[in-house]
């Protein structure tokens, strides 16, 4: 009976943990995509860092996620 009374608090805690963890994973994933897109856009316009120009690697559009 006590377990049933406490169920909303347990479910609430696990829901909060899910929301926080999913939020953090979503934040780093979306931020990575946004930065990669911005870099690819700048590279398309011919802007590269001096070190990258000296040692060309794969463009950001091909970089592995």
């Amino acid at each position, binding site marked *: 009976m*006590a*377990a049933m*009374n*406490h*169920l909303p*608090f*347990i479910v*609430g*805690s*696990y829901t*909060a*943990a899910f929301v*926080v*963890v999913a*939020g*953090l*994973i979503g*934040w*780093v*994933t979306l*931020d*990575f995509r946004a*930065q*990669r897109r*911005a*870099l690819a856009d*700048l590279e398309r*316009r011919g*802007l*590269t*860092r001096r*070190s990258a120009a000296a040692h060309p690697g794969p463009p950001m559009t091909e*970089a*592995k996620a």
Partner: protein
Amino acid sequence: MTLSELANPSRFLSVANRAIPWLGGVTAIAFAFGLNLAMGAPDDYQQGATVKIMFLHVPSAWLGMLGWGVMTVAALGTLVWRHPLADVAAKASAPIGAAFTLLCLVTGSLWGRPEWGTYWVWDARLTSELILFLLYLGVIALWRTVEDPSRAARAAAILTLVGAVDLPIIKFSVDWWNTLHQSASVFRMGGPTIYPTILIPLLVMTLAFTLLFVTLHVAAMRNEILRRRVRTLRMMQASAVS
């Protein structure tokens, strides 16, 4: 590979791109294992079923402190050694540490209502944990307020070192003051006071959360390095136009 080689942002990006999928996979396996153990753990003789909240609350509290600990080491790296990745590590750690500190406060409140009869008391442990959360918000605001990353890094590093005083206060608050919060029951002289059927799931969940923190931190550091490259290129573009 030495630490100084990893200090090169390009080298770090290369290592991070390879490590993140593996770290994510190991984290997922650890969580599957830990949650399975946590759901199968027996009820505590005093707390009843609410002991299951501890499998989230304790790791969150640990990560909240770990996040500030990482920032403290990074702050020394920024101010003393001027390590190129130190302020990147500090900036990446702050939102993750803040999120877990908030989760610690929320799960603590949800545990406190059925066990203590209240969501909140101005107890030394709870108050020092709330101060840690406010410190996180302060340092995040500082990073966002100062536009130049190197100036922001120095200011944030000083605030981080000052805020580090809160870490031993959180840890020892239950010993120094008469608190409603229970005293240490895992990391204490004389060993844990928790029965293995609850201690083992707790330790596995703590390991899973720690792996999650490492994965998120490496990913956030990679994002921060890319953000700085974008900023540099945009400044080059702006100076070329003007």
